[in-house]
């Protein structure tokens, strides 16, 4: 029986407030990684930005991002000096709603800089708190990725019910 292409490597569902989540000891035996997440934060706003760090880094070193962002009836684009990968629902979002996003990381175990592609959305059935975002990020490092940390950009925390799933993808 052939080995599966998509392999579920880890799953985290928060049962309380938590500032960041980390997937560690990621095996190097896959070609690409995929993260699917559903998040909400305690930020006093309708939305917050989620960012990514690698290999235990405690700062946004070697990370950049450019994103486009549609909110309600406007669209814009911006550049950031951190690894922005998504938007999260927040404390002022509609009750019981969580933003959804996916992050694709090709060649995570390779020895080149790492492009990162992500798409996220926050829709809470309101007339003013709806957002969709696509982001191109870059980890400008040739070091293989062995751990991934997701956190919020404003030192806020993810709340209970937020979910983070990591998959490994093989190309043969």
């Amino acid at each position, binding site marked *: 029986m052939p080995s*599966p292409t998509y392999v579920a490597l880890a799953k985290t569902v928060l049962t309380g407030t938590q500032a960041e989540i980390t997937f560690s000891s990621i095996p190097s035996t896959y070609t690409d990684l995929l993260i699917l997440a559903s998040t909400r934060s305690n930020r006093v706003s309708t939305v917050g930005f989620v960012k990514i760090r690698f290999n235990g880094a405690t700062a946004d070193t070697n990370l950049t991002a450019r994103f486009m962002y549609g909110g309600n009836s406007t669209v814009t684009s911006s550049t950031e000096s951190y690894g922005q990968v998504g938007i999260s629902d927040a404390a002022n979002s509609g009750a019981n709603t969580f933003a959804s996003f996916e992050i694709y990381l090709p060649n995570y175990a390779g020895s080149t800089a790492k*492009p990162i592609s992500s798409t996220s959305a926050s829709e809470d059935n309101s007339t003013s708190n709806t957002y969709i975002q*696509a982001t191109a990020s870059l980890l400008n490092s040739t070091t293989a990725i062995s751990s991934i940390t997701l956190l919020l950009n404003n030192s806020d925390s993810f709340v209970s019910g937020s979910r983070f799933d990591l998959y490994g993808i093989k190309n043969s």
Partner: protein
Amino acid sequence: MAAGATYEPIATSSPSGTTTVTFNSFSGYTDLVIIAVAKNDTTAGQLLMRFNGDTTGPYSRTLLIGDGSTASSSRSAPNTIGLTGGVSMVTTADTFIMAKANIFSYAGSTNKTVLVEHSQDLNGSGRVGRYVYLWPSTSAITSIEIYTNGGNFSAGTRFTLYGIKAA
């Protein structure tokens, strides 16, 4: 009943010093996905794709682009599919762009839709894009050509074709 695999790698190509990769052996799937991680060597060119050798198209497209300061949308009907949405890749060492293309109902008898996710942050420039293309052909796709119109693909470039089966 043992379930069959839903998402299968069909082929991977890692070109270096060449301009074109062709996938022409795939059948039995519902949809296709291509993952591209690519760069040029000395001369920057776009990352392009076409089906069944059709060099005229037109491949009708709508683009949604963010360049880091402005977001825009446009429509046109070029003679090829732009996986980088009309801009060139990079020649910078160790820096690659990524594109993901979902090709729906490739073997069916309706026109073919392709959704493209393009990520190209170059640490000071670049873009993020989401593109939709329509190949107005009712022929089944039997050949996928991925190519660049400037220079050659550089070492480290990878194209993987996956097949997805519906139940």
